[in-house]
């Protein structure tokens, strides 16, 4: 057989990322301890190169490897977002790993390998390929969650994530195998042809669709498949939590949406009601349970569940029956916009948690933020911006993201869904602003004054600057990103 060179050129970014990951694994033992940062800079470099190569593919739609892989604008959009998030994660980790004494260069290789898995997910045109991408990402994340292996919580988080993740992968795989049994193919296009002809009346199609929704629901942490999220997010090293909360969620949403629209686009009315129910309970439960949390990481975990619920509004709109194509792709583009904005503010919030130290430990209780404004005016102000944006208050980007989602819902005739979203957004302001209140209005006890401090490094400052710039600039000039999202959403068939 011959390996077509054109196919290899199309997956060049993936090859570069994987190649660099392997190179780091090889170089690690022969690099002296004080030069380990070099490996992190190398992985950052490859991200830049990869993004340049990837962005040149924008606007085309090309299939590769006997139609198993698709490179289209939709995939390019997500890949660019994933590069950005991975880059920020690496920068955030450089200081954090040192502080936590878990400085292993394998960490950076794992970030790159997880990124490769996510890239496979977002440009998979075949259920088997998407599944393998999910596994590559998930297994890497299971290990990264347990990186603080001398700490019981981290190990517990890793084990929990592994067991539940394996279980959900099993469910997903069962759905895929039934679909293969019904249609005789795993390629999305061929599945669509058979499913359109047969419809949901075929019990096998129905069962397979349910299993797929459960499997993906677990990966995006939608209620009622969210149980793992708080424990895993709390126990994992904070830089890994940020990576999981943003990158893996974005990639899972991208694959989920592609599977739903490209393979099951012909039977939209049969799945969008289910997604609608999941969407409403996710928004409700995420926001309500976040109120009672005292740990910032747990609170952000529930907040990420709630945000997954908001993003699901985009899926509902994209699949709502009897609406025009333009509105349907508005659902997709508003979801893409929302997740891009969500990335900036969530990375920012987790970075703040990562740099707040209490003695030798992480300050991750809400209490630890008490009176931060007195000692670190700048840090407290950044946290304020992220919290305000997460709550969706103008003029931040969080407001723009919610605005476009709710507008898409109203255009699809789902004004009541937008109102539900709005009500819960108002409720969410309570727990986001509580942190702001604690920082600005409470006097720290003398003990807290002594022990809690912000540990800043140039890299983390850059991450925070990027995040805050994203939140503020996208809040004021969302235009360019909106038009890019609109353009890329069109390539989803």
């Amino acid at each position, binding site marked *: *057989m011959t*390996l077509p060179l054109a196919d290899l050129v199309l*997956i060049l970014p993936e090859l570069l990322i*994987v190649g660099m990951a*392997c190179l780091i*694994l090889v170089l690690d033992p022969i690099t002296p*301890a004080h030069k380990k940062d070099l490996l992190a800079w190398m992985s950052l470099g490859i991200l830049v190169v990869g993004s340049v190569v990837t962005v040149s593919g924008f606007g085309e739609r090309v299939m*590769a*490897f*006997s139609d*198993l*892989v698709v490179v289209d604008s939709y995939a390019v959009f997500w890949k660019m977002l994933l590069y950005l998030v991975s880059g920020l994660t690496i920068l955030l980790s450089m200081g954090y790993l040192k502080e936590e*004494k*878990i*400085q*292993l260069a*394998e960490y950076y*290789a*794992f970030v790159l*390998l997880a990124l*490769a*898995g996510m890239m*496979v997910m977002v440009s998979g045109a*075949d259920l*088997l*390929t998407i599944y*393998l*991408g999910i*596994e*590559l990402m998930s*297994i*890497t994340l*299971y*290990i990264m969650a*347990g*990186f603080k*292996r*001398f700490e019981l919580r981290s190990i517990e988080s*890793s084990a929990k994530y592994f067991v539940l993740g394996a279980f959900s992968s099993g469910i997903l795989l069962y759905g895929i195998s039934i679909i293969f049994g*019904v249609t*005789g193919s795993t390629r999305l296009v061929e599945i669509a042809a058979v499913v359109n002809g*047969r*419809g949901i*009346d*075929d*019990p*096998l199609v*129905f*069962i397979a669709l349910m299993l797929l929704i459960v499997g993906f629901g677990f990966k995006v942490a939608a209620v009622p498949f969210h149980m793992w999220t708080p424990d895993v997010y709390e126990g994992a090293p904070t830089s890994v939590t940020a990576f999981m909360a943003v990158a893996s969620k974005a990639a899972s949403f991208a694959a989920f949406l592609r599977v739903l629209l490209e393979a099951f686009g012909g039977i939209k009315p049969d799945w969008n009601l289910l997604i609608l129910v999941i969407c409403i309970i996710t928004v409700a439960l995420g926001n309500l349970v976040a109120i009672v949390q005292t740990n910032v990481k747990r609170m952000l975990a529930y907040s990420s569940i709630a945000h997954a619920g908001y993003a699901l509004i985009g899926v509902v709109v994209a699949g709502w029956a009897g609406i025009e194509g333009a509105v349907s792709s508005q659902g997709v583009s508003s979801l893409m916009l929302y997740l891009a904005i969500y990335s900036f503010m969530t990375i920012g919030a987790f970075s703040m948690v990562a740099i707040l130290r209490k003695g030798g430990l992480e300050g991750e209780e809400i209490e630890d933020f008490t009176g931060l404004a007195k000692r670190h005016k700048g840090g407290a102000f950044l946290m304020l911006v992220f919290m305000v944006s997460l709550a969706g208050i103008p003029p931040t980007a969080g407001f723009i993201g919610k605005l476009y989602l709710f507008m898409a819902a109203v255009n699809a005739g789902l004004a009541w869904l937008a109102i539900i979203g709005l009500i819960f957004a108002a409720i969410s302001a309570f727990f986001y602003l509580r942190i702001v209140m604690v920082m600005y209005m409470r006097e720290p006890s003398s003990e807290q004054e002594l022990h809690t401090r912000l540990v800043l490094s140039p890299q983390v400052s850059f991450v925070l600057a990027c995040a805050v710039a994203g939140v503020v600039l996208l809040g004021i000039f969302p235009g360019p990103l909106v038009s890019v999202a609109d353009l890329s959403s069109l390539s989803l068939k």
Partner: protein
Amino acid sequence: MGTIVFFYFASVIVVTAALVVALRSPVFSALALLVMFFHVAGLFVTLHAEFLAVIQILVYAGAILVLYLFVVMLLNLKGEVHFHHQLTVGLFLGCMVFAEAVLLVLKGESSLQASLSTPKEPAQLMQGNTESIGELLYSTYLFPFEIASLILLVAMVGAVILTKKGILEAKG
């Protein structure tokens, strides 16, 4: 004849799979699993997938199960550990899901018949089982195949990182 053979294998698979969960002693569970693996291999043989049958026995029964048994014996589970507190809830939910599945099948019987009435004959291969699988893996499915190799790499490095003594202390 083919139907009888199929139902023999299928029913043994279902029964032994239930035993794996239900039996108290982990060693007996593992042995039930072993019987199940052999019968799955038998199903593969009836489908003319001899290569898969052999792989099933070599990899699952041979490697994975033996590993299970090693772990079970090394852990030396003495006292009986009960994980059956939720038996009633599980039974209730299981019955509900089963009833739902039956309902679904009854409701969609006609369309199910349509898809089952034309059973696909096992493909007549021009070459051996192993050659055709190998050729598919290295041509059509090259991309997923390579991704699977990356997954193995990650699992291997991860196992070292999570378990090896002294790497964090030495480097930290």
